[in-house]
């Protein structure tokens, strides 16, 4: 096999990938009454994808990733309330601002590892959450941001009760960001990230500026997380402190590990399984649904180490 073909082989779109993306169109036909849920799953999948870039591909464990999700949500919300309600431009501004906050904090983050890193991301996230609560004049505090009105997409497609526009919009943005992430993973930069994750000590010895790489991927991940936050604010016209909460950071971490970190589709699969399971369990048993979610998590770890995709890879080893 010629050497370049090896890399070509890795980039090729596998049939299962194509099937997956076609399947994401099914809800329009098969489950029209579940489009709002599908839209929130797509948003959570995008948020998990952004975490996968830093956790799965660069080895940064974060317990405060909701900070950037929240910055994106509040930016989009405040923009729609005070300036203009056009969604796409709101998305761009929200992503840019979240990316900037990500770039600034990355200078602190990349200098630490292990428990110190995890607790710093947790600390930064909680500080931002408190800041949003005390700036209640701007953010609406615990009652949430009121008066967020989003214009229809392209002035045509209204964000209505049925969630058609919401799901289409979220899905397209998810797919676009997925393509960017896929391109990153299979680029020289992506290979460098995998190098850092595999052995951070070796990278300087081959002349790699590890910290510069980590700062860049952290900024990109913050930007995508901000876009996900903006999507939620726009499709639901609601923003509350919860978008910055420790709970949301913990949820997305659970979702990514459940799906399997470092496999690009881990976050997407994790989001689908976790949120559908939660929706069904809480529908059947509103008071104790989280017992079954706990059981699901425990079982997955026992049967499928490294998450669902990690476990499946054991059964269908990919030919290298």
């Amino acid at each position, binding site marked *: 096999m010629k050497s370049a073909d090896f890399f070509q082989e890795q980039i090729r779109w596998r049939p299962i990938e194509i099937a997956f993306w076609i399947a994401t169109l099914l809800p329009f036909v098969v489950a029209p*009454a*579940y489009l*709002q*849920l599908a839209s*929130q799953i797509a948003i959570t999948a995008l948020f998990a994808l952004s975490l996968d870039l830093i956790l799965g591909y660069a080895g940064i464990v974060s317990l405060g990733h909701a900070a950037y999700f929240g910055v994106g949500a509040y930016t989009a919300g405040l923009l729609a309330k005070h300036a203009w309600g056009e969604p796409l431009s709101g998305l761009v501004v929200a992503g840019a601002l979240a990316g900037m906050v990500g770039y600034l904090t990355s200078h602190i983050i990349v200098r630490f590892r292990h428990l110190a890193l995890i607790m710093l991301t947790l600390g930064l996230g909680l500080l931002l959450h*408190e800041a949003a*609560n*005390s700036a*209640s004049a701007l953010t*609406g*505090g*615990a*009652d*949430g941001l*009121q008066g967020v009105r989003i214009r229809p997409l392209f002035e045509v497609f209204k964000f*209505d*009760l*049925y*969630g058609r526009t919401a799901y289409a919009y979220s899905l397209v943005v998810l797919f676009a960001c997925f393509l960017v992430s896929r391109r990153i993973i299979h680029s020289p930069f992506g290979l460098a990230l995998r190098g850092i994750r595999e052995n951070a000590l070796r990278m300087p010895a081959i002349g790699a500026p590890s910290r510069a790489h980590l700062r860049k991927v952290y900024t990109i991940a913050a930007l995508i997380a901000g876009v996900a936050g903006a999507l*939620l604010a726009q499709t*639901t*016209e*609601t*923003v*509350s*402190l*919860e978008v910055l909460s420790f*709970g949301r950071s913990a949820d997305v971490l659970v979702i990514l590990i459940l799906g399997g970190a470092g496999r690009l589709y881990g976050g997407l699969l994790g989001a689908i399984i976790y949120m559908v399971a939660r929706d069904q369990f*809480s*529908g*059947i*048993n*509103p*008071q*104790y*649904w*989280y017992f079954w979610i706990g059981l699901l998590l425990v079982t997955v770890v026992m049967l499928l180490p490294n998450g669902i995709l990690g476990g499946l890879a054991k059964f269908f080893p990919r030919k290298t």
Partner: protein
Amino acid sequence: MLSLVMLAGSASAQQTVRIGLIMPYSGQFADTATQMDNAIKLYVKQNGDTVAGHKLEFIRKDTGGIAPDVAKRLAQELVVRDKVDVLAGFVLTPNALAAADVSAEARKFMVVMNAATSIITTKSPYMARTSLTTPQLNETFGAWAASKGGLKKVYTMVSDYGPGHDAEQAFQRGFKQAGGEVIGAVRFPVANPDFAAFVQRAKDQSPEGIYAWVPGGAQPAALGKALAERGIDPKRTRILGQGELTEEEARKSMGDTAIGIITAYHYDASHDSKLNRDFVKAFNDAYGRNPNIYSIGGWDGMHLIYAVLKASGGKTDGEALIGAAKGMQWESPRGPVSIDPETRDIVQTVYIRRVEKVGGELKNVEFDKVENVKDPVKARMPK
């Protein structure tokens, strides 16, 4: 046992009226949902599940806590997928505000059974509230404290988030308008595992009275103990608060140190009326615990739903139901209540109570009251 959820069956829409209940069944606020749901089930058990020819069917949805994005989606699903005729429940303000948009857009009758921020009912013309508003209680209480309460100088301390701010502003407004002076104010963080520092700060100002607002749950008991530990005797330095401060669990944990604390509330299980005694007895028989404000909010919410269904003569659309709700009056276990025709908010009596030991048990004894209190915030709004 928990009534099994009836999935959208084939029964034609006319006979069945579907009521979607959105509450925080799980998470930090789970107990408020438990108490509200208990009252709803009890009301249905006592009054049957058929009203004016309509069979009632309940669909319960859990928001898991403060989650407006989830609450809005659940409301949309209830309207689009489950074809509900009524949206009800709503313990938390952010969730109520999010669902209000759905009630307005889908023109569905919505009953808020607790969330207490004033502006909620302005968010949908099809919404009525059967619980309270924070200013309704606290502005009235502030005015009472400065007049009949005989207090001139007060120090306020509240939780640093939406409801806490509303309570602080409302109490201070009422107190100042009645001639009182607020000599100091502090806001403690919402997640505040320990109050000692703040109580010490208040004690150093040695005010005549301390007004405190904390969310229900663990904090009232913790604040009460911190007050006792700092040696603040409610009989000398008057301690004032909204009813949560001395609700049942808080009184049990504080013990005798709670005696003398004065609170304002719209309902208490020990309220002296036959209607309430029967309600409390039935509630205890069914659930082994006393009802609280979440229960009375749920109970009166169900009463309103039954009444409007009867009054609207079989029609179940939003206009008909809210039309019937406006101006409705009835005798609730808490006392006389009515729905204000303009604001669709509840008008009720505010009781002033003091914690006393009655027959070996600590109770909130109602010793004064202000009747027919409307929500002052919306009353001031230009029509």
